[in-house]
Structures are given as C-alpha cells and as structure tokens.
C-alpha cells in the first residue's frame, strides 16, 4: 500500500513544482510590458518656450527648457535645463528660477533638482540669489520651499541655513533653521 502511496505523493510534488515554475515565468514576462508603457512619453518638445497666464489673463510665469517630456497617464511633465520666470501677483519685478532638471506634477507643483538658482531681477532686492540642490515651487501660490541646505546671497551678506520658505507675492522669506549670516564690511567706507 505504502509504495502506491509514496508514488502518488511524488507525482503530486512533481506537478506542484512544474505549476510553480510556469506561474513564475509568466509573471515575469507580464511585468516587462507594464514598465515599457510608462517610460515612453506621450509627447516631447525641444527648446521649449511657453507663457502661462492666470484665469484673469495676467502672465503668471514663462518656462524655457532644452527638452520637455509629458506623460499624460501620470500627469507628469519632466524638463531638462528649465528656466522659469515667475511674476508675483502685485506685478513687481519677476524672479528667475533655473535648475538642471524639474518635474511638474498635476497640482501645479514643480520639484527642481541640481544646481537650483533663484535670482531676483529687482536690483534693489536685498536678496539677490538663492542657491540649493533641491527646491519645490507651487505655481499657483508662488511659494518656494526647500528642506535642504540653502545659501542666500544678498547685496552685502551671505546667509546659510535650511528650511527655506519664500513667498514671492508677499515677499516674506523665512529659514526655519538658520546657521549663520555674514555681512561683508563696506570696503569703500573704510578706505
């Protein structure tokens, strides 16, 4: 009896293994197709330049980029060497925001990465440039923030810190973690 019994067991075991292998191989193949779909952008633009207006017809911002890829299934747009010109609501001088790359998400939020530079075009602004590696921009509220370390270059000072929040409309800036600010001595004065 037990020979038949062990034979049955062996057959059962064998079939379980073959089933497992077939299942495993087919799962692998399927995944392959899913990844391919996401990577190919729906449309690409080279040396892009576009102006975006608010509902009231006011110029909100312009974006120039070497290359833009749009993935409509994910509602994500990726930019290479983007250069934003951001116009505050009160029509004061705009700010230039550039980086090596940026990703625009559907809720009008942009994440900029690598060599991020925010520059004031207003020559009298006490803050001239902000340098950092990572920065988030909310295009609807014109609020720029970064958890990473930032360096703020002013007319006569250099500021180091992190936790930057700057609102281009109200012109308020805060660093929740301030490390140090160095005010350069006014050289002509001491000559």
């Amino acid at each position, binding site marked *: 009896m037990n020979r038949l019994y062990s034979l049955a067991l062996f057959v059962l075991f064998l079939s379980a293994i073959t089933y497992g292998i077939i299942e495993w191989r087919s799962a692998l193949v399927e995944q392959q197709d899913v990844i391919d779909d996401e990577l190919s952008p729906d449309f690409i633009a080279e040396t892009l330049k576009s102006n975006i207006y608010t509902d009231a017809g006011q110029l909100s911002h312009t974006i120039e980029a070497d290359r833009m890829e749009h993935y409509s299934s994910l509602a994500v747009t990726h930019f290479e060497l983007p250069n934003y010109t951001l116009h505050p609501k009160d029509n004061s001088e705009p700010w230039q925001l550039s980086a090596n790359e940026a990703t625009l998400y559907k809720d009008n939020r942009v994440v900029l990465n690598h060599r991020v530079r925010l520059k004031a075009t207003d020559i009298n*602004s*006490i*803050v001239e440039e902000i340098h950092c590696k990572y920065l988030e921009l909310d295009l609807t509220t014109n609020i720029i923030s970064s958890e990473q370390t930032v360096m703020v270059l*002013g*007319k*006569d*000072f250099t*500021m180091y*810190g992190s936790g930057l929040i700057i609102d281009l409309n*109200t*012109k*308020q*800036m*805060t*660093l*929740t*973690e*301030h*490390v*140090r*600010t*160095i*005010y*350069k*001595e*006014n050289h*002509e*004065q*001491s000559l």
Partner: protein
Amino acid sequence: AKKDLEQEITIKSQRQAADLKNKIASYLDDVKISQGSISITADIVQVFSDKDDKSAKKADIYIAKGKPAVFQQQLEDGSLISLQADEIKYQPELNTITVSGNALVKQAGSEVSGSKITYNTLSEKLEAESNNNETVTTILQPNVIKKQQAKKEKQDKEGDNSDKQ
C-alpha cells in the same frame, strides 16, 4: 578696538525671517552678533538695510532686543566694556552704539546707568543721558579714580613741557 571695525559682521541664530519689501532681516532665538572682539547677544536682532542718502553708501542699522541685550567689546588697552539694555542699536558705518531701556555700562568695575547711553566704538567715548526725572548715576571704583587722576597729572605735565619748548 579699531581693528574690530574692519571685520565682517557674523550673525548666528536659530531662526531667520526677512521682509524683502521693507528690506528688514530678522534673526530670532538666541542671537549672537560678532565683529572682531565686538559681540552682541540678544533674543531678536533686526537688520535694516538702507542707504545713506548723501553718500549712497550702505548704512545698515542693527537693532538687538533682549532681557537684557548685551554688547561687549575689548578696548584698545585690552580692558572689556559691556553695555546692556532692553534695546541696543548698532550702526557700524557711524561706529555708534545706542542703548536704551534700563541701560547699564560696565567697564573695569565702574558702572554708568541711565535711560539712554550712546557709545562710540572707534573713539571709545561714552555719553549717558536720562529723561527729565531720572538721574544718570556713575559709580567709579577707586582704582578707576586713581587712573583718571594719574592721566590728568600726566596731561598737566605734558601741558608744562609743551609751554617750556
């Protein structure tokens, strides 16, 4: 001392907030300003960047507030002067420090208090004034009095020799 005034001013604090429209940078939570041997400690420091209309040179004003805010500097002769008050106003371009609100100056053991004291960080001269009903009190320690008399005698002697030449 003089060399302090050509140094950079460094401000350390936990938080920072700037009002770009009115050009005011505020530094909050145990703020420390240092410039050479000059040091100011306060709870909040506001820096007003503006230009001197005549010379169009920058004329920043640093306002430090604390309970109290304390200013310290090492003088040319190496001794330490410290000014403390509710508010300290420092104008680097004019080399003046104005302290007001329970203002108290301590130097080599002597003390001067009044409602408002101005001090020139270059000439190291001090001017204390008080509102009408309050008095300016100056407490000189014995050795300071001796030093002043010695200085006076030295000046008289120089006065005599210069007459003789």
